[in-house]
């Protein structure tokens, strides 16, 4: 019983990190309709941004901020210099998908060249472990979960109450119609990428802090887990992304009790495939627009 509670505790932390990253991915996927396989690298460059910041400051907030800014800058540049010029030529969507794969390959190996391939220790100062209900969390875990909640609420408010959020939802439904009604779609898409990068960069920081070290593949190794959470929750649905992340995070950690740890990701993938087969629109939605 204690094992299960412990696993659930881990699962909640994992879920918080996945949830933050998934919200960003899901939002970007629904607005631009491009499955971004460089999303993991946005997390990676964010984490390394925090590492660089850590060399000159002990302030966690500044480290997190630098992670977000680095992630955001890369995402912005990726859309501005690569995706958008191609998108103007109206290629098949899969071509844009391939571009993100190429960007992922470039970024991951660039990080490898600059910082080397070995694991680099990364720790944030944390207070003592605290017992909350049946779970025991370190201060670091609490910080991660707290910031995850703040980001969720922030994204929710952004989507529901601002014009930017409204425009995003309009573009997500139909870019052509949004354009006709006078929305500057290119600008909204560009800002969406920026937002995606900011959040992904922060998620990279949280992941590195939680794992305690970072390597050039840290983000990429989580990429498909994040896709799994996004698909399970339904692409473009913020609450779905949270629920999907919770389900995937818990399933991964609890399964590790019964199966070798390397099967953790396989469990997430099984959930992804099952969702696609049974309810491709996501488990927590009612529409089935993504099914053919």
């Amino acid at each position: 019983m204690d094992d299960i509670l412990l696993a659930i505790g881990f699962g909640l932390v994992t879920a918080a990190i996945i949830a933050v990253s998934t919200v960003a991915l899901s939002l970007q996927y629904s607005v631009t309709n491009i499955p971004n396989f460089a999303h993991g690298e946005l997390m990676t460059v964010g984490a390394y941004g925090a590492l660089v910041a850590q060399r000159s400051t002990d302030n966690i907030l500044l480290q997190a901020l630098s992670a977000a800014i680095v992630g955001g800058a890369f995402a912005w540049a990726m859309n501005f210099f690569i995706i958008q010029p191609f998108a103007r030529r109206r290629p098949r969507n899969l071509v844009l998908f391939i571009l993100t794969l190429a960007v992922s390959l470039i970024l991951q190996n660039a990080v490898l060249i600059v910082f080397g391939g070995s694991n680099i220790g990364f720790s944030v100062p944390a207070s003592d472990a605290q017992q909350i209900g049946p779970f025991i969390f370190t201060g670091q875990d609490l910080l991660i979960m707290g910031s995850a909640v703040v980001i969720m609420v922030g994204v929710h408010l952004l989507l529901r109450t601002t014009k930017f959020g409204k425009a995003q939802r309009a573009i997500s439904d139909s870019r052509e119609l949004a354009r006709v009604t006078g929305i500057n779609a290119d600008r909204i898409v560009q800002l969406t990428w920026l937002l995606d990068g900011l959040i992904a960069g922060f998620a990279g920081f949280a992941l590195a802090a939680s794992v305690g070290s970072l390597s050039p593949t840290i983000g990429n190794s989580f990429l498909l887990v994040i896709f799994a959470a996004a698909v399970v929750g339904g692409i473009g649905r913020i609450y779905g992304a949270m629920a999907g992340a919770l389900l995937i995070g818990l399933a991964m950690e609890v399964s590790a009790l019964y199966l070798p740890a390397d099967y953790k990701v396989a469990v997430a993938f099984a959930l992804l495939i099952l969702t696609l087969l049974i309810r491709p629109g996501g488990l927590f939605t009612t529409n089935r627009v993504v099914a053919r």
Partner: protein
Amino acid sequence: MIDYAVSTLTLGIIWCIFTYAVNTTWGWTGLLDLAPFLYIAVGAYVYSVIVGPPPNGGPSVHWILGLQLPFVFGLLGAIVAAGICGLILGGIALRRLRDDYFSITTVVATLTVYAVIAQFVPLFNGYTGVYGVPQPLVKELNLSASAYQVFFLGLCAAVLLIVYIFMERIFKSPYGRLLRAVREDETAAAAFGRNIYRVKLQAYVIGAVVAGLGGALLAAFLQAFNPYAWNAAETFLIYAAIFVGGSGNNRGVLLGALFISVVVQELTRLFVVIPGHPDAAAALRYMIVGVLIIAVLWWRPQGLIPEPRDHDEAPPDPAGVTPPRPLETAPSDV
């Protein structure tokens, strides 16, 4: 030096076979299959356990079979096993998924199989993999080591020739046109009474079979196979080969695969050396491939040798870049 050239060329030829596999699925049918290495690995493993000996390295070494049959059976087994895997995965993933979801499913399936093979030791000996696979006809021929290398190169070239002829026949046949029709406009092809699902699944299985055949040759070349031999990034190399050479064109595929495997992979290995940084050269190579993919898609999306035009149609664009279509245009002929 000659040995090196022969082995580089052999590997290049095996890469050509991989690239033909992906050309069938992506180049002609427009399916972005990110699982080619799944079929390559299945082919390699099945070949290894059919041709290779039973495990004898101590109590912790396990793999199934170890039949020590002649290599032809190994090739057949690899083809059948890869085909069955393609039928299962394609049969599930092609049925109702949108194209980007299909791609995600193929990646995920590859990683899942990878995890299982690496973890479940009794199947193919986990991370250590299967080893001691004898080379085809090595005992019967009794050649010197370098003469045998040349013979093996010839063997691979013969298999490549068969694959090439097979692909040319498909390309020129009505069936090849059907595949391209599905790529260009699924709805139109369906309107002409074609079963899109079946056509895609057939193309997908053909791709899997060819990839499995290539995988078998790879295992014969390496004489061993383990999970480290299939890195996800290798899939990009195959796609880079297709984009550079010209997707949909059989000669373009040949050119692209040799360009990537010989020029990009080997020449950079020789000349780009960064002292004190062992990973950097490989990383730089992958970066070059990434930049190459983007550059080719931007400046020459049809590749160096574009797909030959079908008679009086608008030129199909192999990388899938289609000009904006006026609303009133009827679906193109198929």
